[in-house]
């Protein structure tokens, strides 16, 4: 009798449960079908015109600012790159100089640059784009402060009145010509101009909004800003009066922050997003094996390295640093954690950048030699050290702790006992900056594809306490790098950088590990998406099949 009752109740419950689930699932599948922008195959052409094309771009974090001049982080530029345009553009997948808002540019002596501006361009608020607008933008920046426009200061040597400030004047000549006068030649000047932070903003808007401009950014780009849900999504939509009537192809782009790489890829698999930045190399097989997805490779413009704090014993001894270089098996690391998708690094800058010294042989994996070097340094019994592993995946180092574990083992083979230490990212950066680490993993992605942006920023003595985390200081290198900054002749300049790389190679302040190829994944019906080496992708041409 009890049995009977039990069964009837169980049945009842299951019934209720299954109806609930059924109701729920049928309901939801219905809605996704109707709102799915790219699922237009069954509806035919008629629907196409009304169905908006929406791209959901999943990425690792939210933007900090939407005013590019204020931003310093890559996630901010990912968005502003599509709202704003710069006078000059980088190439679609490299850092060559192409036309942007300026159609022509020239210089005689490297001191005076003349830009001819594109005509018929309007800002998204209706303001005309002209020479006056450009001048106002540069005035805004040059009258700013460090915490307002940090990139301006670091790229152009400070602000108006500062001794290092490179720009003498920016003047308008008529509506469509802008003339820059420099105090001294700056070799990467055009590359700097093309950087995302120097997107031209609507003067009407920033004069009106002041500090609030970042919440309501207005540029000339193919998309205009719609909404920013902090830490969640940023929505931009098609700017219908864009100067190129063909573009953009998409109606709307939503940038969604999903911090975890695996979670982001899962979201792509389940169709919640269309494009996923930062795919774990280990997952690339899952992407290529999935007929619904395609894999993108971002051209490499970075370096991942193991920094050795040159002021801390025993790393103040060049032989120890060289021993470290010989001890680490870079190839295995790349095979295991970059899924082969990376180059072994031998210089502090990637080979895609002009000035790269390919003649340098690099330190080969040779534990025996490493031991010998240690012996020479009087450390034949090895020593104990802290090995700092970064806690977060970065494009140049997908899995810091794991790589650290391999390095730990490599070092153990030559008698060095390395204890892996991790801090949260914030603490990590601060402590390494203070020189508290023995050896630390870090990396750098280039801003503008110039050698100066690697060698000077990362290894010049001027930048100790800033980005020269290794505390490497060499006067000869310093002189060469300063000379190269003002050398306008490309060949001579490359010669200087080649020299610097040789010295750095011999002194081995780091163990350069890899130049990775960051991976992205997208829906298979995504068209014309070209990942840019700087990490800021233009989405104007992107379309759905």
């Amino acid at each position, binding site marked *: 009798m*009890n049995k009977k*009752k*039990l069964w009837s*109740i*169980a049945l009842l*419950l299951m019934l209720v449960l299954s109806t609930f689930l059924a109701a*729920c*699932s049928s*309901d*939801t599948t*219905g*809605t*996704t079908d*109707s*709102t*799915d*922008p790219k699922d237009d195959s069954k509806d035919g052409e008629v629907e196409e015109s009304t169905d908006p094309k*929406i791209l*959901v771009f999943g990425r690792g974090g939210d933007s*900090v600012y939407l005013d590019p001049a204020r931003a*310093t*982080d890559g996630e901010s530029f990912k968005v502003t790159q599509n709202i704003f345009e710069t006078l000059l553009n980088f190439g679609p997948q490299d850092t060559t100089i192409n036309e942007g808002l300026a159609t022509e540019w020239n210089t005689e002596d490297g001191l005076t640059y003349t830009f001819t501006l594109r005509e018929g361009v309007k800002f998204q608020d209706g303001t005309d784009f002209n020479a006056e607008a450009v001048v106002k933008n540069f005035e805004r920046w040059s009258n700013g402060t*460090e*915490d307002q426009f*940090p990139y301006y*200061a*670091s790229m152009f040597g400070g602000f108006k009145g500062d001794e290092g400030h490179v720009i003498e004047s920016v003047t308008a000549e008529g509506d469509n010509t802008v003339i820059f006068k420099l105090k001294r030649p700056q070799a990467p000047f055009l590359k700097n101009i093309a950087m995302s932070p120097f997107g031209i903003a609507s003067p009407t808007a920033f004069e009106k909004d002041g500090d609030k401009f*970042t919440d309501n950014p207005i540029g000339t780009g193919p998309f205009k800003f719609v909404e920013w*849900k*902090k*830490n*969640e*999504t940023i*929505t931009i939509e098609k700017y219908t009066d864009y100067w190129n009537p063909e573009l953009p192809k998409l109606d709307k782009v*939503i940038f*969604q922050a*999903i*911090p*975890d790489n695996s*979670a*982001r890829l*899962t*979201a792509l*698999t*389940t*169709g*919640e*997003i269309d494009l996923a930045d930062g795919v774990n190399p280990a997952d690339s097989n899952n992407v290529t094996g999935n007929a619904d997805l395609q894999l993108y490779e971002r051209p490499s413009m970075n370096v991942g390295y193991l920094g050795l704090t040159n002021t801390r014993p025993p790393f103040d001894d060049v032989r120890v640093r060289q021993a470290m270089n010989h001890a680490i098996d870079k190839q295995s690391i790349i095979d295991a954690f970059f899924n082969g998708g990376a180059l072994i690094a031998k210089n502090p800058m990637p080979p895609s950048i002009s000035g790269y010294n390919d003649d340098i042989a690099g330190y080969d994996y040779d534990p025996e030699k490493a031991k010998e070097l240690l012996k020479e340094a009087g450390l034949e019994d090895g020593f104990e050290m802290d090995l700092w592993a970064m806690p977060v995946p970065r494009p140049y180092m997908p899995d810091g702790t794991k790589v650290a574990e391999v390095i730990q083992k490599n070092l153990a083979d030559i008698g060095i006992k390395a204890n892996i230490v991790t*801090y*949260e*990212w*914030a*603490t990590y*950066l*601060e*402590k390494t*900056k203070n020189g508290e680490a023995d050896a630390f993993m870090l990396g750098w992605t280039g*801003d503008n594809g110039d050698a100066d942006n690697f060698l000077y920023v990362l290894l010049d003595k001027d930048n100790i306490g*800033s*980005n020269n985390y290794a505390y490497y200081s060499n006067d000869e290198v310093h002189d060469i790098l300063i000379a190269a900054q003002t050398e306008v002749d490309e060949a001579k300049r490359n010669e200087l950088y080649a020299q610097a790389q040789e010295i750095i190679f011999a002194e081995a302040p780091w163990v350069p590990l890899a130049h990775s190829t960051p991976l992205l994944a997208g829906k298979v019906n995504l068209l014309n998406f070209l990942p840019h080496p700087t990490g800021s992708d233009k989405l104007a041409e992107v379309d759905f099949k």
Partner: protein
Amino acid sequence: MDYKRGYTFLFLTFCSRIILEYPATFSLHNALDGEVKTMLHYIGKRLWQLVPVLLGMTFVVFMIIRAIPGDPAQVILGQQASESAVKALRTKLGLDDPWYIQYFDYLWGLITGDLGESMRTMNPVSDEIWGYLAATFELSLFAILIAIIVGINAGIISAWFQNSWFDYTAMILALVGVSMPIFWLGLMLQYIFGVEFGLLPTTGREEVRNPVESITNLYVLDTIIQGRYDQLGTVLKHLILPGVALATIPMAIIARMTRSSMLEVMRSDYVRTARSKGQRMFWVVYKHALKNAIIPVLTIIGLQMGMLLGGAILTETIFGWPGVGRYIYEAINFRDYPVIQSGILVVAFIFVMINLVIDVLYSLIDPRIKYD
């Protein structure tokens, strides 16, 4: 956006008035009838006791946060920022002041309804936090609902068919549930329902292509108000996985509690004699048990609220749920002092208030329980 700040201000002034002028308001209560009076007295006393606790909390949070190494200015500006930019921002954010000045600034802000400005987004925390709180509230409510519905029913059925296979299975599951590391459960759910079957969304709380227009920021409610039943479906779908993960532990506890209180009920002569009369008795006991189950459930909500909020940090991190747990956790990573301070404080305040409400509810439901 300023109206939200206004609300915060009004709310806090209201609370502080109750607390500070409590001795005066108490004399008013003398006119009221005894039952209500004792309760108001009790509530007043509890609120009064909250003052030192809240003050202590502000201080503890403040000190802990200052003790955390790492420079917020550096984090805000990122790895590529120059040293002087970081310095300038430090000064601007008031990080160069001595700690006690920062503390009293902060306290003064709290009193005037100012929870500070997020260093990362530059928005007032009082504006930002409502949305996150609502998201967490929705998720927790959903989880508690699952826990209650499944837990109570499983408990009742288990007790009724004591020692049956259902009973054993349910109770073993409940034991497993209590011991579940929910971050693991969350990942497994994601793997099974997201990756393997692709059935359910694994991140966020809405379809971003078709965003819910927020009114209350409780999306289930919002979609119903707007009659967007298509969106209601997606919103519910997004709730399922994190909701189940978060519900597991309270569900297991409720099931076990209901079962044992049910067994007690069933041991009574009334039920024992009536049991032989057949199935209808089941529903009688069911009703009876439901009534009895309210108290353990309240206990659970009270006890588990902290765990829910804590569990929410992990669940929200795993499922990308834009709730207050993740808000605070990310703020810790970004050294966003005002957000950590105010976030933790608001959460703790809510937690304390919920416990107060539950204590009061207790006495309403069960007159045997007397206030201290």
